[in-house]
């Protein structure tokens, strides 16, 4: 079959078409090192966040420091955001490899297919993780799969493919990282054309981009930096603590505002039913705790309400039991590990910063516990059940 003239005129590049000496393994490895650090931080904090959202944790996470999840999840989003420019620059440096000649001998061909296949998996998984993560923090849901489980599963694929990639490239990585950045031993022979910047210059610009993008997109609720966070989906200004999902979005406005609202506390056959007035009549405690969202933002508030342990005492529940807290928003609940249920800082909050809770913050009553993901701090609490 003859090649159509249009295709014949299309310049299909080869590896040698790329001549900039900035596209060097010396640059790739240096950017890749920090990209690897970002992916490692995002993976570890992400697995931790996934575990923190499990209903029955085999080994419960600690309840202190109260800001633990705030820090780990903040790091998760920071690492993922900083990875965007790092990944783009790294891919730019290795782009010529996409046009590498295909080996003709069977053995080499198999090797090349395996290696390039693993790279394709790595790039696909890495881009997927960053793209879905960045879209999710803006609540831009342009997909119809579950973000949480897909982002989690693909994270394992990305990390596995990354480890395999490091294993394959380790000798080159070691050689170029121990040599000067301008060393050309591992460059492609044709990559000699000077760029507008030195290699050091390109690296500095890359670090700068990582810093600028991270502050612009991920520092919205960091008091000292929030004015620079021009692309952040969240801010502390005006409304105080941001809201992940409003009462209207959750479809609970009617039930939450109704006079007939009651909170049911049960342990086995014992049960007490409390109105908001009755909750307000119980001893009130105040705790300063952050709401730390899986989306990376966090904000601290002074919460006042009834200690969870006091409520559990009303139904004679012994210490050391898991407690399921359910919302008017169905089906939304969380299981507090025993150490969290018994913690003196864990409250059924009725007020925030001295004012009665707003509907969007969980009126008539919401759960607030130390060191927990925001999504597990159940709002519009309808039922507290001691599990046996």
């Amino acid at each position: 079959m003859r090649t159509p003239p249009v295709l014949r005129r299309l310049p299909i590049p080869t590896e040698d078409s790329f001549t900039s000496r900035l596209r060097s393994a010396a640059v790739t490895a240096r950017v890749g090192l920090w990209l690897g650090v970002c992916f490692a931080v995002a993976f570890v904090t992400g697995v931790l966040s996934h575990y923190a959202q499990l209903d029955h944790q085999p080994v419960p996470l600690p309840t202190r420091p109260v800001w633990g999840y705030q820090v780990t999840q903040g790091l998760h989003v920071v690492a993922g955001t900083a990875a965007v420019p790092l990944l783009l620059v790294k891919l730019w440096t290795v782009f010529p490899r996409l046009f590498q000649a295909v080996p003709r001998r069977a053995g080499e061909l198999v090797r090349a297919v395996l290696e390039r296949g693993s790279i394709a998996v790595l790039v696909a998984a890495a881009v997927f993780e960053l793209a879905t993560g960045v879209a999710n923090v803006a609540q831009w849901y342009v997909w119809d799969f579950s973000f949480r489980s897909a982002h989690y599963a693909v994270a394992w694929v990305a990390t596995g493919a990354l480890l395999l990639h490091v294993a394959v490239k380790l000798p080159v990585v070691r050689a170029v990282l121990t040599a000067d950045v301008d060393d050309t031993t591992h460059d492609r022979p044709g990559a000699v054309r000077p760029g507008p910047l030195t290699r050091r210059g390109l690296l500095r610009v890359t670090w700068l981009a990582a810093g600028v993008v991270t502050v612009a997109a991920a520092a919205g609720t960091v008091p000292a930096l929030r004015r620079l966070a021009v692309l952040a989906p969240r801010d502390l200004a005006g409304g105080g603590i941001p809201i992940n999902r409003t009462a209207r979005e959750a479809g609970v406005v009617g039930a939450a505002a109704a006079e007939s609202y009651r909170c049911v506390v049960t342990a086995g056959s014992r049960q007490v039913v409390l109105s908001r007035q009755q909750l307000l009549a119980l001893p009130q405690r105040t705790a300063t705790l952050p709401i730390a969202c899986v989306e990376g933002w966090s904000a601290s508030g002074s919460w006042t309400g009834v200690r969870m342990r006091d409520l559990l005492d009303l139904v004679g529940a012994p210490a050391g039991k898991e407690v399921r807290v359910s919302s008017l928003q169905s089906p939304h609940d969380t299981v507090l590990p025993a150490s969290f249920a018994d913690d003196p800082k864990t409250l059924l909050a009725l007020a925030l910063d001295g004012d009665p809770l707003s509907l969007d913050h969980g009126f008539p009553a919401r759960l607030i516990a130390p060191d927990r993901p925001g999504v597990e701090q159940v709002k519009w609490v309808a039922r507290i059940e001691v599990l046996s």
Partner: protein
Amino acid sequence: MRVALGVLGVALAAYGGWLLLRTQDTGEVLTIGVWLGAGVVLHDAVLAPLTIVLGWAVARRLPDPVAAGAVVVLVVLGSASLVAVPVLVNSAGPQTNPTLLVRDYPLGWLELAGASLVLAAVVTAAVLRSDEARRRNGADPGRR
């Protein structure tokens, strides 16, 4: 050690694949597959060629010190713009949550564009000054 690392990598990736199949139904797995492929295609067939064309135009049309500044704009503003797509698009639609997407994002993008131009000017000035210093010392203009 390399072999152990490679085997561990394959095992983790396989676990991820198994998780994907276990936690999603067939339709979702297909959608995720499309998204995974789309990321690679968008980068390799759109973003990378676009960068090459831009780089080529910059290198041909602009003197080196200015081109160095253009690289700053491309890397800083280019990656920031990609990260900005969700907030820019989503904030243009109807809002149901008064604490989400609270800023003026087109203005924020313009501010970032201005900041990258300033950074570009600083880099251009720095390159000019170091070229000048090298020339005065009679040294090689440096490796680029």
